[in-house]
Structure formats: C-alpha cells, structure tokens
C-alpha cells in the first residue's frame, strides 16, 4: 500500500517537473495526484513537497508590485536553500529549474551553482539536461567552481547516448574555459571523426570554441578536417566551414594550407545554387542561405591578397551576384555577403563595378535594413573605390532625409567621406541643411565634420569663414570647445577678410546672443578689429554705420546678459579692454573695467583687476600690450586635417586623440578653459614678448603685472589642482563653464537627503522649444558608494517624459564623481512643470528607496 502511494507521488513529482508543458496534463489527473500527495504526507510526515515550477511561475506572475514579487521569491528561495541543505535528490532538479526562472527575473541564484554540478553527475537525463542548462546560465569561467564539471563532461562525452554527449559538447562549446578546453580537446577531436553527424556537427563547433580559447590546440584538429567538406549532411558541412574559417583566420599557415580547398568550396556553392528545390534546406526559394553565406565568407578569407584563389572564385561570385533572387531578405543577405567578398578579394574590375552597383540598388530598396547595409558597405569601400561610390552620391545624400536615425547616421558619415574639392559647395549645402534640421544627437558630429571638410577643401577663405559662422549660428551649442579658437585663428590669418568678418559677426551678435561659441568669436573679433567696424571699411558688402558707443553697448550687454556663460563674459571684458586702444572712449572703458574688479565671478574679477592695473600703473605699456594679434602659427591642436577617419585621402599627421567628434565636452574642462583663455585672449596683451607660446602666456602676464601671486605653471597643470590657489579653482570647478545654455536657466537642487544630492540643470532643445532637456547630476557626500542607483521620474499626464540611460549606476562616495542622466520633457501646453521622483539605491549593503516631489522648477524651464 505504502509503495503504491509512493509511486504515484513520484509520478506526480516528475510530471510537474519534467513533462514541462503542464498544460497537457488533465486537471482531473492533477487533482487526484494532489490528493495522493496529501495522503502521502499524512502517512510519512515528511517535509512538504516544494511547489512545482509552473505553479511558482504562475504565482509570481500574480504579484502586483515589485515588493510583493520580491517577498514571494525570498520565501521560495529560503525553501529551496533548505531543500539543498538536506541533500534532497528528489526535488533538486525542480528546485534548480525554479532558481533559473528567478535568475531570469534578476534575482541572485549563485547558491544553485553546486547543485547544477550534482545534477550533471546524476544518471537521469532530465537531471543532466537541467543541470547543464543551469551550469551554462549560472556559471562561467571566472568562477573556479566550473572546473569541477570537467570530469563529468569528460564522462558524458563518452556516454552511450548521443543526446547526453550532445549536452556535454554544447556546454563545453558555450562556456568551456581554457583549462577545460585543454583537458577535453582530445575528446572533442575524437568526436569530430565519428560518422554520427549529430555529434560531428557539435564537435566541429566545439572545436571552434576550443581554438578560440587556446589557439595552440589548433593543429590537433588538422587531421580531422581532411574529409569534412565531402560530407553530405548540411549541419556538418556548415559547422565544418565555420571551423575552417576560424582556423584560417587565426593562423597564416592554416590559411596557406586550406587555399587548396577553394575549388571544392566553389563546387559546393555551385551545387547549392544550381540544385533544385530541397524542402529541408530551402528558405523562401533559396537553397540553404546559411551555408551559402558561410562559404562566401570562407572564400573571402582564402581569396584575400591571393591572385590565384581570387581568380578561381571570380566566376562563381559573378554567378551568385547575378542569379540570386532578391525579393526576400535571404536573397539580399547572400548578395550582401557576395559583395563583401568581391570587395575584399583581388577580384576583376568588372566584378567590382557589379558589386558597387548591387549596393547602389540596395540604396533604392524599400526595406530600411537593406538601405542600412548598403550605406555601411559603401562606407567600407569608399576608400578603395571612391569614384564608383561617388556615382551614387545623390542617392546617399537623399538618405540624410531618412527618418531612421541608424540610416541617417550612416548617410551622414558617408556624405562626409564623399566630400572633395569638386563637390564641396553642393555637399556642404546639403550637410548644412541637414545640420539645421537634424536631431540634437547628430549636431556635434555633423558640426565637426563640416569644420574638417571645410578646412580641407574650402574653395575660398570667405566661403570657409561663412561656413563656420553658419555652423555656429545654427548649432552653436553643440560644437566642440576647440572650434572657437580654431575659428579665431582662421579669421586672424585671413587678413584681407577682417573688416568683412567683424561686420558679419557684429550683425550676428545683434540677432542672437544665445549661441555662446558664436558670441565668443564675435567678442574676440570686435575687440580685435573694432576700429575696422566703426570706420566702415568693408569691401565685400555694404558697410554698416555704427558708433563706438553702440559697439560698447553690445559688449556690455553681453557682460550683464544671463544668457552669457562666464567664459563668454571673459571674452567680452577682454574685448572691451582691447577697444581702449582702438576707440576714443577710454573713460567709459575704464569705468566698466573698474566696476568688474569687484565682480563676484572670480575669473572676471581677476581680469578686471589686472586690466585696472594696466590702466593705472602700466598705462605706458598698454598700447603695446593691446596691439593687434599677429598671424598665428598653425599648431597641431588647431584644426585637425583629417575627415573623421573615413576619408580615403588623409594624411595620418595628426594624433588620433584629436579625432573624437563625439567628445563635445572634454573631460578636463579646466584644462581647456585655461588653454582657451591663455591661447586666444591673454596672448595679445603680451604679444611683444611671447607671440607663439600661448599656453604659458597667461602666467607670464600675471608675473608681469605682479599683483597676483599665481605662478606661471597655472595653465598647463590643471591635473594637480591642489597646488593651485583655491579661489581660482572654486571658480572653475563649481560652474558648468561649457554647458552653455545652463547659464540661461539656473540649476536647481531637486533632492538632498541622506547625503544624496540631486541637481537639475536645464537646456531648451533648439528645434523644439516645447522640450525641456533636464540633466540630473547625482552626487554622494557620504563615505560609501551608492550602488544600483536608479532614478525614476513621473510627470502629470499633460507632459511627456523620456528618461535616457544614466551614465552609471554607482554614485561614488565623498563627492568623487556624479551620475548624470538626461530627461526630456515634452510640455506642449507650457504648463508649470511638476515631477515626482523615485530613488532607489543600495547604501552600505542595505537598499534605500525614497520618493520626492519636485515643484520648484525655475519658470524659464517651462515657460
């Protein structure tokens, strides 16, 4: 009687656990079983059977909140742990399976690692199946525990059941570490030589993994590769080609050795495209596209820089390129691979033209995916086949108008790569138009692309200056910091354009003073060439009539405008100072300078104090110090000469670090600031002494004036901040100097509690004034890091909110860094902004959660 119950419950246990689709089990049956289980428990008084996997999943899915789910899981985990402790063999498999489910939900499951190993060692296939699955999910080569598996895998590789052998091969091929691979490579090699295709295909891929992990084991597999390609089974054939590819890529000797296989590979490919319909391997009318693509890729490697092999595959490539049916994605996948092979090997020129034309056709395809790969591959070939790609220019430029960002980005890169001396005017027109209308994420890259292309191919100086000014007016807040000194240098060096430039810039300033880089360049130029502006000497266009006072009004306006950043104010004050030798209204200038010698902005104050001293103690030197800037020598840091590394005809003369168009705010802002000020502002004052060494000039000036104790090493050494006088540092580090628009809307503290402080800075997206771009900066004053930091925000229904991904999820202790995250709020009705924020993080090991309401947004952020 007892054993009868036992057997039934046993069945029940296994049904629940292993006949995994419980939807197939009739309900009635389950109820009966349940009754048996209860009876069983009454009789034996043992621990209750753990709930079944499906039941657990069902229960967890009923949880309405995260907290509820966490509670359920904690309870279940406790039960599982105690079951593990009791070495309960019956339910181990079920428990591990449940653990794997919880692991997928993101809960810790490492305590199941050893249990997986026990399951693998079990005799039952079910146990092994779940055990190996668990090992692949919970273990990897960085935990030594995985080595305990080696022996089990070795046994299973020699098991009598092929499916057990398959499990072992799969696990080894997925997560085997180099030690494991060394130990088991022999077994893999043996299986690679069996006649059983089920094992052979797995062994081939396992060998690929072994080679990736331990390249010196490669030769071991060489004898077994001999007959691989004569295999009829497509699984074995496909995996063999993968194995051969791996070997050829890893070793030049192997590549040489396997070149003799080209005719055989060509034959297989030919048979594939010629063969009639074979239902087993057909995908939308194309026979085995996966194998075709793999063979094409191997041919590419074998034919690369080898004339004979390339010659041997020319015909078949042409055949594939012309005969492949392209109405479906599969056909295009093959065609795409063929194009890549043609471009990579030493193919005939006719074939190359054919390949580029295929890409040209791809560009016109309705399917976005196809257009994307066309742009990507054209970008790869633009260096070698520049003229052929050039023919598709108009189609490529059209892709700039595509709505899909992936395609837009590719089209932009390719457009820049296609710019040359002949088409620069037309291309720039398109690209400037693109810059005008594109998403903010493109502006920085596009602006640097325009700068670089203009520098390289500008047809005239005037065109060059106009183009850069255009960029500054349309995308001013997105350009890299060094574009200001670059433009200033360009202007200085174009002597005949000075009057024209200063007039244009003055007009631009009257229109808009929010684009900081433009304002900075304008201020600099007005300071430098103010006399030309007032005297109306412009020859290029009709001179404007302005008085000295009007010019000074504009510059003083910049000093007080809340749109100006501190850097801009610095430029403006220096410009005013320079005008003291170019204009007659010296008294007015003296007054302005003396007002700012008590400014709360230390940077500005310092300048004003220095200039004051220049008026008082060193007035005799003033005219000489403020003379016009000489023509600057071109330095490496000014104006990189390459175009985004994608253009073919570039000279690698400039260090690569200068080519990161993505970096809009260099990490060391303080450094750049000092360079900037030192390089372009302060230099003119002492040009008589040191005209070509701008970096140290700032310090020299200070020495000269002698009323401030800053040392000459100030500019080049901001990386050792401690050595510098603290007040200057305060000024540099506490203000977001380069975040131009943040000056327009004051930052606010949204949250400050338990050492966590969250600040909001604002920016209004230019193309759409209804979008407020808020950047959060989270800092942590406590002595422990805050980990798993998650910031969430909610807004009322009239708004829409988009939370971009954070810079990190750890807020470092002691204010040693911050986490930033961008929030975009769409506020079409311009209502007062309100926000509810939720913060979760782990601090000193314990989870913290807090809610807060943020209502005190500055009106500028939403009006």
């Amino acid at each position: 009687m007892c054993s009868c119950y036992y057997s039934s419950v046993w069945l029940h246990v296994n049904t629940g656990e292993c006949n995994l689709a419980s939807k197939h089990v009739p309900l009635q049956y389950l109820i009966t079983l349940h009754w048996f289980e209860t009876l069983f428990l009454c009789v034996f008084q043992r621990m209750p059977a753990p709930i079944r996997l499906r039941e657990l999943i069902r229960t967890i899915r009923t949880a309405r909140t995260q907290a509820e789910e966490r509670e359920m899981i904690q309870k279940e985990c406790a039960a599982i742990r105690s079951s593990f402790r009791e070495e309960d063999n019956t339910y181990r498999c079920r428990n591990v399976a449940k653990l794997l489910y919880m692991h997928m939900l993101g809960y810790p499951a490492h305590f199941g690692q050893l249990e997986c190993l026990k399951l693998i060692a079990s005799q039952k296939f079910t146990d092994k199946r779940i055990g190996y699955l668990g090992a692949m999910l919970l273990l990897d080569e960085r935990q030594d525990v995985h080595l305990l598996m080696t022996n089990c895998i070795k046994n299973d590789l020699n098991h009598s059941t092929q499916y057990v052998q398959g499990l072992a091969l799969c696990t080894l091929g997925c997560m085997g570490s180099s030690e494991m691979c060394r130990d088991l490579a022999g077994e893999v090699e043996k299986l690679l030589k069996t006649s059983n295709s089920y094992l052979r295909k797995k062994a081939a891929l396992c060998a690929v993994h072994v080679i990736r992990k331990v390249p010196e084991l490669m030769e071991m597999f060489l004898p077994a590769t001999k007959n691989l390609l004569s295999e009829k089974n497509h699984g074995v054939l496909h995996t063999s080609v993968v194995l051969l590819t791996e070997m050829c890529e890893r070793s030049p000797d192997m590549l040489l050795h396997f070149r003799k296989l080209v005719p055989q590979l060509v034959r297989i490919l030919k048979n594939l495209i010629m063969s009639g319909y074979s239902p087993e391997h057909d995908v939308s009318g194309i026979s085995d596209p996966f194998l075709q693509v793999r063979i094409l890729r191997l041919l590419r490697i074998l034919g690369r820089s080898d004339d004979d092999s390339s010659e041997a595959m020319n015909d078949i490539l042409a055949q594939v390129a012309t005969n492949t049916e392209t109405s479906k994605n599969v056909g295009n996948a093959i065609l795409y691979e063929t194009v890549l092979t043609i471009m990579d090997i030493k193919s005939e020129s006719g074939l190359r033209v054919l390949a580029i034309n295929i890409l040209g056709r791809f560009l016109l395809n309705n399917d976005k995916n196809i257009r994307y790969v066309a742009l990507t591959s054209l970008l790869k070939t633009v260096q070698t086949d520049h003229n052929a790609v050039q023919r598709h220019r108009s189609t490529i430029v059209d892709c700039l108008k595509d709505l899909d960002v992936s395609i837009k980005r590719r089209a932009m890169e390719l457009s820049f790569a296609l710019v040359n001396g002949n088409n620069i005017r037309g291309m720039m027109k398109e690209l400037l138009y693109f810059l005008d209308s594109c998403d903010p994420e493109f502006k920085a890259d596009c602006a640097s692309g325009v700068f670089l292309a203009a520098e390289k191919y500008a047809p005239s100086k005037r065109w060059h200056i106009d183009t850069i000014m255009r960029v500054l007016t349309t995308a001013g807040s997105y350009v890299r910091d060094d574009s200001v000194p670059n433009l200033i240098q360009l202007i200085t060096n174009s002597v005949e354009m000075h009057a024209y430039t200063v007039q244009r810039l003055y007009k631009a300033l009257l229109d808009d003073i929010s684009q900081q880089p433009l304002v900075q360049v304008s201020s600099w130029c007005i300071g430098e060439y103010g006399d030309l502006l007032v005297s109306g000497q412009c020859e290029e266009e009709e001179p404007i009539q302005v008085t000295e006072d009007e010019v000074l009004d504009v510059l003083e306006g910049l000093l007080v405008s809340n749109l100006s950043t501190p850097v801009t104010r610095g430029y403006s004050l220096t410009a005013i100072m320079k005008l003291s030798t170019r204009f007659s209204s010296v008294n007015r200038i003296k007054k302005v300078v003396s007002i700012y010698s008590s400014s709360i902005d230390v940077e500005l104050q310092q300048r004003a104090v220095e200039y004051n001293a220049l008026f008082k103690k060193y007035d005799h030197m003033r005219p000489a110090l403020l003379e016009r800037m000489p023509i600057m020598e071109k330095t490496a840091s000014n104006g990189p000469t390459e175009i985004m590394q994608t253009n073919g005809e570039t000279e690698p003369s400039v260090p690569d670090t200068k080519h990161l168009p993505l970096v809009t705010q260099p990490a060391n802002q303080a450094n750049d600031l000092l360079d900037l000020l030192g390089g372009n502002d302060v230099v003119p004052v002492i040009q008589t002494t040191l005209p070509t060494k701008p970096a140290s000039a700032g310090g020299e000036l200070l020495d000269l004036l002698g009323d401030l104790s800053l040392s000459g090493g100030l500019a080049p050494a901001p990386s050792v901040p401690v050595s510098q006088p603290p007040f200057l540092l305060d000024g540099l580090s506490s203000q977001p100097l380069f975040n131009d628009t943040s000056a327009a809307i004051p930052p606010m503290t949204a949250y400050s509690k338990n050492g966590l402080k969250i600040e909001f800075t604002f920016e209004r997206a230019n193309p759409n004034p209804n979008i407020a771009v808020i950047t959060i900066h989270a800092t942590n004053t406590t002595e422990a890091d805050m980990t798993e930091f998650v910031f969430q925000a909610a807004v009322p229904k009239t708004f829409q909110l988009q939370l971009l991904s954070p810079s990190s999820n750890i807020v470092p202790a002691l204010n040693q860094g911050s986490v930033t995250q961008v929030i975009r709020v769409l506020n079409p009705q311009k209502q007062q902004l309100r926000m509810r924020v939720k913060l979760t993080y782990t601090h000193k090991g314990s989870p913290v959660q807090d809610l807060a309401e943020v209502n005190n947004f500055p009106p500028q952020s939403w009006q």
Partner: protein
Amino acid sequence: MVSGSRVKQAGWPPVLASKMRFMLLFSRQGKLRLQKWYTATAERDKKKMVRELMQVVLARKPKMCSFLEWRDLKIVYKRYASLYFCCAVEEQDNELITLEVIHRFVELLDKYFGSVCELDIIFNFEKAYFILDEFLMGGEIQDTSKKSVLKAIEQADLLQEEDESPRSVLEEMGLA
C-alpha cells in the same frame, strides 16, 4: 607542412571572425524572457547591458531599421508579436543573415509549441533554451535543417519522459 604553425600575430589582416555575443528575448514591457551569453560576462555587467539595451530598443519606432550600433557591437533585433528577439553581433557580421537566424529560431519555437506565444516561452523557458542550444552553439548555427533540429529535441524529450515514466508497482517493490 603546417607543423609549428604560427598563431595569428598583430599585423596579420584583421580577424573577420564573427561571433554572436549574446541573444536576448524580452517583452514589450521590458521583461527579460531568455538570455544566452556566448562570452563570459560578469553578472553585474549582464544586468546593466540588458537594462540599457532594452531601453534603447524599446524606444525605437516600429518602422525603423532592425540594426543599431551600441557600444562596440551591432544589435540586430526583430519584434514578433509582444516579444523582441535581439542579437548582439560583431562589426564584421552579416546583419541580414542574423535576421534570418532570429527568424529561424522563431520558426523552431513555433513548430515546437504550435503557434508559440509569449506565455509558452514564460512557462516553458527551459524548453526554449533547449531549442536554442540545439540550434545555435557558441553563437553559430549547428544545423541548417529545421527538421533535424526538431527531431533532436523530440528525441531528447522522449528520453526525458522515459526517465520519468512510472515504473510498475511490481518494479517498485523490487519484484520485477
């Protein structure tokens, strides 16, 4: 002739080796349904990458192309009903064939479960893993025939059932 073969050194043409780094299945609501990592990655990094990637992919509009560049990887994704299938491949990989790989996996699931839906994958996640492991290994296709993959899975399932089929009462009592 190949004895003492040199292993690739710097300067040799760039490795074309393509490798799928991972495959993820997640729902429209951002719930992870399946994850397969083909390179060793720390648990913490996995979580971070999954979260980040889900955000990026879910933010894309339905008509956009199926590829995006993310970190140093190329993401190929496709949405099937409520589920996103998302593969991370390397620079040199053929994105279009990766889409076919995803599609083949979906077909296999569909055949196995019989018009598969998200719930099938939630409740039978381990089956989905078994199918994936029978189809791909280390990110490479094991067999290009749907039939042989499904046959292998069925056979293995049978083996599992044998394991569990109830022994007769007599057997249980040691009388058989």
